[in-house]
């Protein structure tokens, strides 16, 4: 039932349906102008702040405090980066972010897709399927802050404060409901006959999951993994709450500059660039999947 969707032509029709000849001329001119203004403004408003972040990190103090402000400095310098690295164990914090992000992403995708498979295939009694699904939804919806304090207490009792494993566990748990939610939708859309065929071929549930379902879900898995990774990399609330010195991630280090370093904008933006650059490059490189993950997440019930 291949309905005509997503074709180039459809998009054109939606964007610029050719209207009746008489109206066509003025309508089209007005629309084109409005379109260009909208896109132009969008680009400027997005790009100027982004570039500002980058160029400020290469400015001397005279330039970043100059009025009128300048996007392009009179002279470029690497001082911000140099001082930043000299005064901080940045490599260590960077590795914290990397390790925490990668481990929690791998764990949440693994545990989450298994749970999604179980939930989409099992017929549980007492409407448990629905209850579990609602629980997942709620966990994704409620503000994490409402569990923050007991969570902090648990971690303190476990003596996990200021450890990477505390953050790995936290982000795994954070991303789980989201992975489950996305993957359930995907698993339910897989053609049921593929699994039937695998059953006839002699696969048990475990084999079906690893040999048929997961390989077929690769695009969705990648999409959810990317989104989980971006969220884990950027997370701040629990990171600032659960870490002090050893296990700080980049956002926490960044926030430290606000409170005690005044207006060291060159260092702050340098750290900003270091924090944002990996995730930005990564996300734009795999943009197709990122977009897919986002849209799946948004239009799922």
């Amino acid at each position: 039932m291949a309905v005509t969707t997503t074709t180039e032509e459809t998009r054109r029709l939606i964007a610029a349906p050719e209207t009746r000849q008489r109206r066509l001329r003025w309508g089209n001119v007005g629309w084109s102008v409005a379109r260009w203004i909208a896109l132009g403004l969008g680009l400027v408003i997005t790009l100027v702040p982004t570039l500002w972040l980058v160029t400020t990190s290469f400015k001397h103090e005279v330039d970043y405090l100059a009025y009128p402000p300048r996007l392009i400095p009179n002279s470029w310098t690497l001082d911000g980066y140099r001082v930043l690295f000299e005064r901080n164990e940045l490599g260590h914090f960077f590795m914290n972010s990397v390790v925490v992000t990668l481990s929690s992403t791998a764990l949440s995708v693994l545990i989450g897709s298994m749970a999604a498979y179980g939930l989409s295939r099992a017929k549980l009694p007492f409407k448990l399927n629905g209850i579990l699904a609602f629980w997942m939804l709620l966990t994704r919806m409620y503000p994490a802050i409402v569990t923050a304090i007991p969570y902090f207490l648990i971690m303190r009792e476990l003596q996990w404060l200021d450890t990477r494993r505390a953050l790995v566990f936290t982000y795994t748990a954070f991303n789980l409901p989201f992975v489950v939610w996305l993957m359930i939708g995907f698993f339910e859309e897989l053609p049921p006959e593929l699994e039937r065929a695998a059953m006839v071929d002699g696969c048990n549930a475990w084999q079906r999951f690893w040999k048929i379902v997961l390989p077929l879900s690769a695009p969705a898995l990648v999409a959810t993994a990317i989104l989980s990774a971006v969220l884990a990399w950027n997370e701040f609330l629990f990171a600032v709450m659960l870490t002090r010195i050893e296990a700080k991630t980049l956002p926490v280090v960044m926030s430290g500059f606000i409170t005690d370093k005044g207006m060291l904008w060159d260092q702050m933006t340098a750290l900003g660039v270091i924090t944002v650059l990996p995730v930005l490059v990564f996300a734009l490189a795999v943009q197709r999947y990122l977009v897919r993950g986002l849209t799946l997440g948004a239009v799922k019930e």
Partner: protein
Amino acid sequence: MASVLFDHVTKRYGKVEAVRDLTLEIADGQFMTLVGPSGCGKSTTLNMLAGLEEVTEGEIYIDGQPVSGLLPGERDIAMVFQSYALYPHMSVRDNLAFALKVRGMPKNVIAERVQRAAKMLGIEELLDRKPRQLSGGQRQRVALGRALVREPRIFLLDEPLSNLDAKLRVQMRAELKLLFDRLETTVVYVTHDQAEAMTMSDRVAIFDRGVLQQVGTPLELYNQPVNIFVAGFLGSPPMNFLDAQVSDTARGAALVGDGFSVPLTQPHAHLSRGQRVTIGIRPEDIEIVPGGDGIQTTISLVEPMGSATILHAPVGGKLVAIETEKTTPLRTGDSVTLIFPADRIHVFDPATGVALRGDQQRAAA
């Protein structure tokens, strides 16, 4: 190679009965076709045999062994799905080999079996392609191949040809028949296409609304349908049905309806006077005569089919289809005289739809 027995099998989904009290035997090496309109229970029956659906009541036996506790993979069956269900992420070779790998067969045996199946189906050149690089017909062959390499006791085929275009379907129909004739394995074949059922099967089982209507060879079903449903389901264009009553005429007892009269002969002689019946006659059984005694009517529509021509003409209030040779000179508006040969008439009870045949009633009694 195996026989199958459905023993009073019922399948319910909640309160809906998908299959009701099915008893059906399939002999070793037989090509059995389950046919019927969509939702008639034929696919559910196949899935129960495969082990993909659980039996609600009754038991299924393969070679005399009850199988309801067995998973599909433990039943030694192979299945071809309507959508082919090829694993999209595996090459054709891996698709064929998958079930054997899962069963832990030695590599050389797998390679040899895959090679043999591929050769049998003429898909040797496709072995390293992915399913999405194949045409519909090629996918169909791969799906078949995946079943062949298994060398199972029973082949289950669920509408395997319905995703092919008309021309390819006829070609594959013949190929499948040849293939399974050669393999001599038991085949259970599900289709909604009566042509496939008629041409390929040793025996056909017709289903309607979850109930098995009739089992027999294709010609038995065609020539001696037990009810109106079976009579109307097989044959294209379908059998004509007209209301009639058993009456006495100047020439003796006859089936008299609006605009026609057919002498009452064997095997319907047992019908009592005054009984209301539905008579059925196939389009190819109606004779057109030059004139004289018969049903006078005017042709209202001519449909040249190529190999034959179908005429439509009103008899009483109803339009009747008549199959005639392709060279017929008759045109719309021509007057014709029709004869319903008495020995070609099927008679049914209008209330229950059951065929009223003296010999069958005797057999039943």
